[in-house]
């Protein structure tokens, strides 16, 4: 029977690395390095984050600072390892671009390391071979290339920021002058580069300071949504919103509902072409000397509100990178007029090293012309990712030799003569820059599980080297740069997780050219416009194989394991469509089929499509899921496609939601107050038959500030990693059996859209505890509502009684079928639950106990305990701590007049409470 990933992702075919060889591997590394020496089973030259303990104590975690890369940029992390096994990633608190926080992608990168479907060894024509045989080929090839000065050799990479990789490529190109290097760019920064080039005469990266702004105007810019800047933006956004009286105002205009729009103080739904109108009108009102057509009344209101708030203080206007460069430039001019440049908007040199590469269009042209003999695709997947109008796949037919190096045996690998598996970031030496430009040295948390090479090692092999000393390759770059100070700086960089002082100075470039090449009139549109965006959970497909991310609900729709054709209610009504109805989207040539999802707040004549699905990774999780919206992209307009038709197919498929109902139905789960009257009203007098419990110190409690939550799912994925939460697959989720202990509820009829993270409430009068016949649901003295797994017999009475429905049940043995590598990833401090057992959020009891044990041992008062969700939350919406201590952060947030209890009428006295959202004053919103 073929393996069906949509139903049984955990029951994977037996891994090639079996338990025995894994144990052997771990055993060998332990005895080699761990028990004999004092450096642990990680790479001998990696340095622990804080201090190096004498010898490895099993059960005591060690932390190493490193980074994972996303879109070519570093996401700085600290990796927690137990006896050489990384089990959790947390944002690096010292790194200015992370500040200890992270996004869902970074949290899930851990599973990427252990992904059982990763490629495990080189293949020639699909058949496994050894690296020796590839090296033989590479040595011969290098010799031939030396003779022919690299003629016919091409290298294709994605965008990257690694100075070492750049150094290697430059060296290779110097040695083989006729060889050429091309880039398959993701286009995320194209408009920004073009706009700065045009305005300032140099290609720069925008560095907005959301924390410095008192008003933010975001036009088609989901800056709080997923992306390489999400963590930093969200950290700054959180800081700006926490400013109390001077709380920042956010005005958003967008066509497709986004996380940013959801948390906006005012959101305007725009047709795709109206972004230009709005910007021009705004520019005209600011006296930029632009003639603008009169905007509609809603736009007029938005602009008035924007200008009214903007006039007061520091304002920042952002235009999304999916918009044409001319609009981004207009946005920069408006910012200049608003006085934002140098105050709320800064510029820095691009962190990318891949800017010198030639475009992929040149490569395809040369391939078609037969000028290319050998193409090495280094960590890039052009067969899937190249825009379809380039016709890369057709040009492949004329290519004699294709080499593919990547983490998976993906679409390009399937077409390649040589497939060369790469190391994951967490097991390799490398370097990269974060979004702010700060350099991170990536050090391995663990030796590679499989027979894989790093990107640096692979390039070294291509150049005829051994390719087995990645550390030397990376340190070589920095030895050149630092000279004498190398040893000290290198140690410091590994220790702290980044190179101190490497953050480039922000620039204040002079404006050179204010001319605008705006289309004066938007062309008449026929048909529908698709807005194509990277997916919120699998991005452009780089995370397709990551089961955690596949099962992370999309922030707004709460869908998992697929992409949909998202449309506005008006369009749905016109075609008589409901959620899950299959439609065909066509531009006349390309036809995509997918289920419809109806989103309120979307512009009427648009389709919102996301990338990253419709994959063909043989035997992979993502095979056969969703449609490839990338097929509609064009090089000229990569983020939109006009002139589409929508045809209902008359079929309906079930959609897998983690939250099928997203209206509050007139109830007030998400409460709101105005900035002026900050107190939440409560009309329920708590009644109690029982005498109050004596106050205990500590008493654990949590607050979640709904004004700060941006629904980014970082907490959900962090919780999944911390607590060994299994993935159950689409069919199970559709049946209401998702396992996430922490869910983020989303309501479309709150004060605007609203997110509400719901962990266990840890009720003081917990209804779940009363019903359990076997004492499996019990209360701890410090206020935790505990679930004793090995006592549970699975009557599920607790879940029936739970008003918040936060309990999750193991309907099957979800964990027994886990691949060996996935078993190695589990947090050893958290029990792996078996079949038939109820589970739920524990307030990370393992972290509490760890702190308690440490405090007892040192005879010190109990220090701060940080839960996994709180740790990850980039806006610091989640606060956890001891409510018995009046000075604790959580006690202060509980004293906030905005503090309220979810389902207060149930009188369960939850320890988890919420801080109400702040809505615009009546009449303003």
């Amino acid at each position, binding site marked *: 029977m073929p393996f069906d990933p949509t139903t049984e992702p955990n029951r994977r075919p037996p891994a090639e690395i079996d338990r025995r060889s894994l144990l052997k591997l771990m055993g060998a590394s332990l005895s080699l390095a761990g028990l004999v020496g004092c450096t642990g089973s990680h790479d001998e030259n990696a340095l622990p984050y804080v201090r190096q303990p004498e010898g490895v104590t099993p059960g005591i975690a060690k932390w190493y600072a490193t980074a994972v890369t996303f879109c070519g940029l570093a996401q700085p992390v600290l990796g927690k390892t137990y006896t050489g096994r990384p089990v959790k990633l947390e944002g690096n608190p010292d790194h200015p671009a992370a500040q200890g926080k992270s996004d869902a992608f970074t949290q899930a990168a851990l599973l990427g390391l252990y992904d059982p479907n990763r490629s495990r060894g080189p293949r020639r024509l699909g058949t496994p071979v050894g690296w020796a045989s590839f090296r033989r080929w590479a040595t011969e090839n290098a010799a031939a290339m030396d003779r022919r000065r690299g003629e016919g050799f091409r290298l294709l990479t994605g965008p990257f920021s690694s100075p070492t990789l750049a150094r290697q490529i430059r060296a290779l190109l110097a040695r083989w002058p006729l060889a050429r290097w091309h880039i398959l760019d993701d286009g995320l920064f194209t408009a920004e580069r073009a706009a700065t080039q045009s305005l300032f005469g140099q290609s720069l990266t925008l560095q907005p300071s959301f924390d410095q702004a008192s008003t933010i105007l975001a036009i088609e810019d989901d800056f709080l949504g997923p992306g390489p800047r999400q963590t930093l933006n969200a950290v700054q956004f959180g800081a700006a919103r926490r400013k109390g009286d001077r709380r920042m105002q956010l005005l958003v205009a967008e066509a497709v509902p986004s996380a940013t729009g959801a948390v906006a103080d005012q959101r305007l739904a725009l047709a795709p072409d109206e972004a230009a109108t709005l910007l021009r009108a705004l520019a005209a009102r600011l006296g930029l000397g632009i003639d603008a057509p009169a905007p509609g009344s809603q736009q007029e209101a938005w602009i008035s509100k924007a200008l009214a708030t903007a006039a007061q203080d520091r304002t920042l206007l952002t235009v999304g990178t999916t918009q044409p460069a001319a609009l981004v430039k207009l946005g920069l001019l408006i910012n200049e007029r608003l006085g934002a440049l140098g105050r709320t908007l800064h510029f820095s040199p691009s962190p990318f090293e891949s800017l010198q590469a030639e475009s992929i269009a040149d490569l395809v042209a040369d391939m078609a012309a037969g000028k290319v003999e050998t193409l090495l695709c280094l960590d890039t997947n052009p067969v899937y990712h190249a825009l379809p109008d380039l016709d890369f796949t057709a040009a492949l037919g004329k290519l004699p030799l294709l080499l593919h190096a990547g983490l998976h045996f993906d679409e390009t690998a399937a077409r390649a003569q040589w497939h060369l598996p790469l190391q994951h970031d967490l097991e390799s030496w490398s370097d990269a820059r974060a979004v702010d430009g700060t350099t991170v040295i990536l050090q391995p948390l663990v030796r590679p599980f499989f027979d894989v090479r790093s990107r640096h090692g692979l390039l070294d092999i291509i150049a005829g080297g051994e390719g087995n000393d990645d550390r030397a390759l990376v340190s070589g770059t920095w030895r050149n740069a630092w000279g004498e100070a190398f040893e000290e700086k290198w140690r410091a960089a590994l220790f702290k997780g980044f190179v101190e002082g490497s953050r480039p100075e922000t620039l204040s470039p002079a404006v050179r050219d204010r001319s605008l090449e705006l289309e004066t009139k938007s062309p008449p549109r026929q048909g529908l416009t698709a807005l194509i965006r990277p997916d919120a959970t699998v991005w452009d497909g780089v995370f397709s194989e990551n089961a955690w991310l596949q099962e992370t609900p999309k922030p707004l729709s709460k869908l998992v394991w697929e992409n949909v054709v998202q449309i506005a209610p008006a369009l749905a009504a016109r075609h008589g469509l409901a959620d899950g109805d299959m439609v065909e989207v066509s531009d006349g040539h390309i036809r995509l089929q997918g289920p419809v999802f109806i989103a309120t707040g979307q512009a009427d004549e648009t389709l919102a499509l996301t990338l990253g699905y419709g994959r063909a990774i043989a035997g992979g999780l993502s095979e056969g899921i969703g449609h490839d919206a990338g097929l509609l992209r064009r090089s000229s307009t990569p983020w939109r496609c006009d002139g589409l038709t929508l045809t209902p197919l008359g079929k309906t498929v079930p959609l897998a939601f983690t*939250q*099928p*109902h*997203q*209206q*509050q*139905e007139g*109830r007030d*789960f998400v409460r709101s107050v105005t900035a002026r009257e900050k107190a939440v009203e409560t009309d329920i007098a708590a009644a109690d038959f029982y005498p109050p419990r004596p106050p205990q110190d500590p008493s654990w409690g949590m607050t979640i500030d709904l004004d700060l939550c941006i629904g980014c799912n970082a907490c959900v994925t962090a919780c999944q990693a911390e607590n060994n939460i299994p993935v159950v697959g689409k069919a*199970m989720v559709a*049946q*209401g*059996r998702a396992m996430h202990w922490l*869910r983020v*509820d*989303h*309501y479309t009829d709150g004060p605007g859209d609203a997110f*509400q993270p*719901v962990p266990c409430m840890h009720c003081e009068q917990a*209804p779940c505890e*009363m*019903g*359990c*016949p*076997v*004492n499996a649901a019990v209360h701890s003295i410090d206020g935790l509502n505990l679930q004793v797994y090995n*006592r*549970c*017999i*699975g*009557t*599920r*009475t607790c*879940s*029936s*009684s739970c*008003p*918040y*429905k936060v*309990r*999750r*049940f*193991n*309907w*099957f*043995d979800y964990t027994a079928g886990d691949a060996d590598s996935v078993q190695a990833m589990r947090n050893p401090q958290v029990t792996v639950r078996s*079949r*038939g*057992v*109820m589970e739920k959020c524990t307030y990370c009891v393992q972290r509490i106990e760890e702190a308690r044990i440490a405090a007892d041992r040192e005879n010190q008062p109990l220090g701060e305990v940080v839960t996994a969700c709180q740790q990850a939350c980039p806006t610091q919406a989640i606060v956890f701590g001891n409510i018995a201590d009046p000075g604790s952060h959580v006690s202060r947030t509980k004293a906030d007049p905005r503090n309220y209890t*979810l*389902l207060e*009428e*149930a009188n*369960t006295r939850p320890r988890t409470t919420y801080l109400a959202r702040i809505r615009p004053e009546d009449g303003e919103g």
Partner: protein
Amino acid sequence: MSDFSRQADRAITEDIVSIPLDFPHPRLWRLFFGMSLALLGCFFVSAAVLFVDGVGVWGINIPVNWGLAIANYVWFLGIGHAGTLISALLLIAGGHWRNSLNRFAEAMTLCAVACAGLYPILHLGRPWLFYWMAPYPNTMDLWPQFKSPLAWDFFAVLTYLIVSLLFWYIGIVPDLAALRDRAKSRGRQVVYGLLALGWRGSGRHWARWQQAYRLTAAIAVPLVVSVHSEISLLFAAGPVPGWNSTVFPPYFVLGAAFSGFAVVLMIAIAIRHPLGLDRLVTDRHLDRLALFLLATGLMTAYGYLAEVFDALYSGEGPDIDTLRDRLTGTYAYSYWAAVIFNFLPLQMLWFARLRRKPLLLFLVALSVTVGMWFERFMLLTTALYRDRLVSSWGEYSPSHWEWALFLGMLGVFLTPYLLFVRYLPVISAFEVKEAYRKTGRLEDA
């Protein structure tokens, strides 16, 4: 003692005791028994799948994490109540007409309680640990949590099973002796002889027997009320809107008696003619049963009204929402099916003429049995599928394994019952005789 009454005694004994010794319709019985064995096989297959794969093979989920299993548990247990009610309560209250009905009604109770007892075990996430609900000495030093209605459940069902079994067995001992005495084959003599526990019908035997039987009856009577009251607390003791209501205990007990009388009526009609018992189970008995059915049915209907009133009078948003979900929501069909099947055909029983039409009575009773099943299903799902927090709303549809287990459970019910009908006296011969002597009428016996 007159010859006349001796003759009558003998005739009654003959009528009843000859059935197991010389079964009137062996081929018909084999046909039914074969079918029930097939159903029993279905039970074993679906239970095996359940045990091997886990309770996830059912359609239950979060929020509806109890499904057919618990609905059927309540349904089966309710059906069982009529047996105890007829036997014990009427024994003590002196309703002589019960004597023609009590034996097969009690046997029905036993089978139904066995089915009911299996369901909560099957529905557990880890069914092999069900005994953790019992207070037994163990190295973990742990007892059940006595605050939990489920712990009470465990005691209630177990007590009910034991008391019903004892009551039924004590009652059948004299008739087993009669069977032993009349059995022709050696094998039967031995088996019936062992089961008869050496009963010789001496005066001392009868005196002891009277004590034991009446005492067990006195224990069983409160169970009629307490067991189902307790089962209702499984729902009512929790904070779930739509369950958390004080009307639940009487509502459940009356519903239980209602469904139980329906099943007793069906069995009486089904067996009296094929087994030639028309003289003993008369139209008058059916009439009495029908009246009880009507009475308990009306009381159950009052429970429906009280529940609606309760929700509206409370003014609590969640309770009113659950009421609306019941009347108009996804599972409204189960509410209206319960109302229609339970109470609409029932109204025919107001007419004495119709109460003596066996086929009609059978159909009315069948309708009530189905209606009460819908009621149990409705009570369960409508409260759970839309709980307080909208974000956790979800729907439930039973999987085919749940239906298979339900079918199989009918086999668990029918197989021992058919064995009882075939091999044991279905009517209490000596009690009928006793009643006959007291009243002089077989109709009242």
